[in-house]
């Protein structure tokens, strides 16, 4: 009996959430009085939540050491226990390489979100305590949903996750329309989820009871069933709809920008970077293996939707005036890439998509959280891009980290996102060349939306309400910056640069983008085998190069040295 790493990873955040919530017990309602006790209560909640999230990271390290990368295509760290024997539902968890990376993404982002939220919630410590507790509860669900190997368990978690997410958006958001956004999110997700439930039950009933013993919901038992063509396609469509809403594909994306605009950047990080990955993760690990025929049948349609999403999201992002809404739309575009890669059924495309699920999480998380730091510097916490200007001069570290995060959204080589995006492009071309070609202009659109945003917020002159001074603007008509003007602006800057806490958050994410961009092998070994498995399960194989096997380099000068 080995240590149940996944169960530990699921249970620990719940305990930490409880502990965080309990730090407020016996202290009354500090926010109402604003006493010293209230401040202390808030600090304790922060420290407990952060410590809990960091212990979770240690557990994750343990899970990684127990994981055998040479068998990354198989489910490992598996545990199976009966749950509802009457219907054959079990508590079955286990991860392949992709699942492990997504668990790692969840567990890695939570402490950063907690750190970033340190001074959020308007200084109301009791509110912050509850916020952090809900974040930890959500973490448990996120880990569980990526680890579930039982379709029934997956479905229950898929729906149960909505509860903490709903409260994070509607209860702790910062936008005026947060309740509207929360209800919209909930209704969209529930609609998709309920249709999926029908398909889950229908699929369960397809298992021939006599051959495979008692019916179960285990994924491996449901894989490879002889399904009627129509039944398979209908069930596929139900699963796919639920996942398409989650991962938002155009045209069922419109809940995402509203959520991004109204939730806190930390909530959006968890929602868009992690929780929504359930959609693409579900397509990869449920739609493809459970319904191979229907997947192949639907692929042209799905690929069109994906390409539309890629371009549509990017164009919409260019047209946004709200910073967080803009980031939301960039994700619509990126989810399009992930779906495109999955449905090209090439090992390069599916592995690229799997890697992109991780990389997009890091990149967009960095973008959301650093955007949150930008907004925190505005006296009225404005999210309007037009309310900013010239911040690079007064806050260079903020500017630098934002630029790296932004360029990672545009898949700049050297950053992690490039590797996954180019893999999706290369994989897609082998199967769906037209789709790949049509999607290529997205690289230009991405450059436009990130650089336009950077230009508007970080270059030019600092507006007066952010403390920009007239002396600096005077240098604007031709003369180069004078030393005294610039230095004075820096010293007296009302907009301070990132402090140590914020630097930690931004530094970890930017560092991860760089490391995974320069040494992509660190992550690739987890997605390579699962990608090939997914292609096999869907009944396809990689198209061989047109000119046959790789030619051995015949030129005599080559390799004669070195």
């Amino acid at each position, binding site marked *: 009996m080995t240590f149940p790493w996944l169960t530990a990873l699921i249970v620990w955040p719940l305990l930490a959430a409880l502990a965080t919530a309990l730090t407020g017990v016996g202290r009354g309602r500090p926010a109402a009085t604003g006493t010293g006790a209230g401040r202390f209560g808030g600090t304790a909640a922060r420290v407990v939540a952060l410590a809990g999230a960091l212990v979770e990271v240690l557990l994750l390290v343990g899970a990684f050491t127990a994981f055998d990368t040479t068998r990354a295509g198989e489910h490992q760290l598996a545990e199976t226990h009966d749950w509802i024997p009457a219907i054959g539902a079990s508590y079955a968890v286990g991860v392949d390489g992709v699942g492990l990376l997504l668990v790692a993404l969840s567990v890695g982002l939570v402490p950063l979100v907690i750190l970033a939220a340190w001074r959020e919630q308007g200084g109301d410590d009791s509110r912050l305590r509850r916020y952090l507790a809900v974040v930890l509860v959500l973490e448990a669900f996120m880990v569980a949903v990526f680890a579930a190997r039982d379709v029934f368990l997956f479905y229950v978690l898929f729906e149960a996750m909505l509860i903490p997410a709903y409260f994070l958006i509607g209860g702790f958001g910062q936008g005026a329309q947060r309740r509207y956004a929360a209800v919209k999110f909930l209704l*969209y997700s529930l609609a998709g989820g309920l249709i999926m439930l029908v398909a889950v039950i229908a699929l369960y009933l397809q298992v021939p009871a006599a051959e495979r013993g008692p019916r179960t919901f285990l994924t491996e038992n449901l894989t490879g069933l002889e399904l009627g063509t129509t039944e398979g396609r209908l069930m596929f469509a139900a699963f796919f709809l639920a996942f398409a809403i989650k991962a938002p594909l*155009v045209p*069922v994306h*419109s809940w995402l920008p509203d959520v991004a605009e109204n939730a806190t950047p930390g909530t959006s990080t968890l929602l868009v970077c992690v929780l929504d990955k359930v959609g693409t993760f579900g397509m990869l690990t449920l739609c493809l293996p459970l319904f191979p025929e229907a997947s192949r049948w639907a692929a042209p349609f799905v690929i069109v939707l994906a390409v539309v999403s890629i371009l*549509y999201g990017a*164009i*919409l992002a*260019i*047209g*946004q005036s709200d910073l967080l809404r803009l980031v939301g739309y960039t994700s619509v575009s990126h989810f399009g890439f992930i779906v495109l890669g999955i449905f090209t059924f*090439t*090992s*390069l495309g599916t592995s*690229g998509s799997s890697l992109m699920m991780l990389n997009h999480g890091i990149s967009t998380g960095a973008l959301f959280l650093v955007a949150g730091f930008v907004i925190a510097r505005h006296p009225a916490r404005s999210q309007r891009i037009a309310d900013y200007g010239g911040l*690079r001069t007064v806050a*260079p*570290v903020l500017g*630098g980290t934002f630029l790296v995060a932004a360029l990672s959204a545009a898949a*700049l*080589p*050297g950053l992690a996102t*490039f590797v996954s995006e*180019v*893999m999706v492009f*290369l994989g897609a071309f*082998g199967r769906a*060349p037209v789709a790949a070609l049509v999607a*290529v*202009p997205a*690289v*230009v659109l991405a*450059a436009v939306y990130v*650089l336009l945003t950077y*230009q508007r917020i970080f*270059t*030019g*002159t600092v507006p007066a309400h952010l403390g920009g001074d007239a002396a*600096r603007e005077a*240098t604007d008509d031709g003369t*180069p*910056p004078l*030393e005294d003007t*610039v230095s004075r602006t820096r010293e007296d800057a009302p907009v301070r640069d990132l402090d140590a806490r914020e630097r930690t958050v931004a530094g970890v994410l930017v560092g991860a983008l760089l490391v995974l961009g320069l040494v992509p*092998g660190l992550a*690739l070994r987890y*997605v390579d085998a699962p990608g090939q498995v997914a292609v096999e399960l869907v009944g396809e194989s*990689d*198209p061989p*190069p*047109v*000119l046959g*096997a*790789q*030619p051995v*380099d015949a030129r005599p*000068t*080559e390799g*004669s*040295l*070195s």
Partner: protein
Amino acid sequence: MQTLGLAPWLVGLPLAGAAVLLLGGRRTDRWGHWLGVLASTAAFAVGLVLLADVLRLPADERVAVHSLGTWLEVGTLQVDAAFRVDPLSLTFVLLVTFVGTLIHLYSVAYMAHDVDRRRFFAYLNLFVAAMLLLVLADSYLLLFVGWEGVGVASFLLIGFWDHRRENAVAGKKAFVMNRVGDMGLIVAMMLMLWQVGSLSFGDVLGAAGGMSTGVATAIGLMLLLAACGKSAQFPLQAWLGDAMAGPTPVSALIHAATMVTAGVYLLVRSAPVLEAAPTAQLVVAVVGAVTLLFGAVVGCAKDDIKKALAASTMSQIGYMMLAAGLGPIGYAFAIFHLVTHGFFKAGLFLGAGSVMHAMDDSVDMRRFGGLGRALPVTAVTMGLGWLAILGVPPFSGYWSKDKIIEAAFVGEGWRPWVFGTVALVGAGITAFYMSRLFFMTFAGRRRWESEGEGARHPHEAPFLMRLPMIVLAVGSVALGGLLTLGGGFTTWLEPVVGHAEHHDPVLPVWLIITLTLVLVVLGAALAFRLYAVQQVPVEPPASNALVRAARRDLYQDPVNETLAMLPGQVATRTLVYADRTVVDSAFLRLASGVRRAGDGLRRSQNGYVRSYAATTLGGLLVVAAVVWALAY
């Protein structure tokens, strides 16, 4: 080759320099610029060691690949972190690090009064690292990392003084237009992997001969698209003029000597693909010829000294592209001209920087004049660069440009006559606009105030700025001749670009040389008359339509705005509007429909037992009817 293992250090040293300067923050302000100089110098030293090693080897052993291991291995794709050291990449390494180091030195003095000097050197080092990766990479994917890396460095440096909005906009414009070109490289990589199953130079170029003409043409045109973006060739040329917003050393290094020539590198490196695709090759030559004239015409009308030089750069790269499109007879001369141009154009830009330094950052040549006496060193070094770009024998440009003109006259049918004539006429126009620039700046009456409001007090630049100018001027004089000795440079490149058979031009060589020199003398004489003998008006005179068009870069910005930006903005606004009014509202209407249905059904829940009883009766009747219908 024992020193091959040093190749990764060429990238690593400047990259480390950039990392220290960026992460070290203001602690490194005091000595940061010297660290930058050191990193660049060290890279140059490594380049020299490699050169010495390669030169000891026989020609057929001069191509070597050093792999650090697998960079990326997944599914059907495998890319090594491999560096290719051969005469072509070494040429670039030495050009980039030598000119780069000189410009680092120059910048120590030029940026001395800028509080952000350390950041400037960090970006410069970042650029050098990315550029060296671009030329040393042994696969298209790794090349692409350097390719976009220099794009980012260029973006950061053009917008270095980003508190001015127009500088930031210029940086963005450059990056976005480069990305348009980068689409070409991405598509080319898709095609290569689809055909060959690999992205390494060895595999792709080795298999180029086996590709169908159609595929080779597609790859060739996509590579050309990439080259057009990076090298500011028609129709993606519009960013280069605006890029002059960057500090002048940046214009010298990135936007004249090195980065903008990367497109030429890409095409020469991919020569086997182009040779399998005659149509693509022809398009390369046409793009080069068009840009050559485009830049030359624009150069004649610019009063901004840096923008005139930028137009000239575009035009000279047009010569290189033309040569690259001519096939094996052109490759070596494309690279040869690239090297000599790197020296004299960098020298000219540094001279322009020195003039700006003396004239309180003014760039308007109509308000220069007579600066020769105040700035003797600048005048002489720029004068030598001027003679070099004119192609006056025995200066550097003569040896390289004249060979391109000769090669353009080789061939059959209409091509030699068209390409040859364009190259010939271009040389005459070049002589005119470069002489115009030189005379407007240094000769004639002074057109600036020496006292009172807005007075200028031109003074020669400090030694650290003069030294690189002098070294580059020496190169402008002698480099071309030295590299030509005994056919040295073409032989040196042969292991990469192959041996070119000798072909006779359609005109005798002596006639071509004579015609070129006559046109050059005519162009220069005309400029002398107009800008040295006659008075230059301080305000630009109203002129004919061509001059007015050339002043506005032949309307490149209005054209781009009409063709790309305007439709883009309309599409964006329409979609933003449609997203709310069509997509979102469809779902909102669905939601409100559900609510209305609920409201309607609620009315039946009225609390009266009699209506419930009626409903029950109605239901029973329906069930009975259904059962009856099914039973019979």
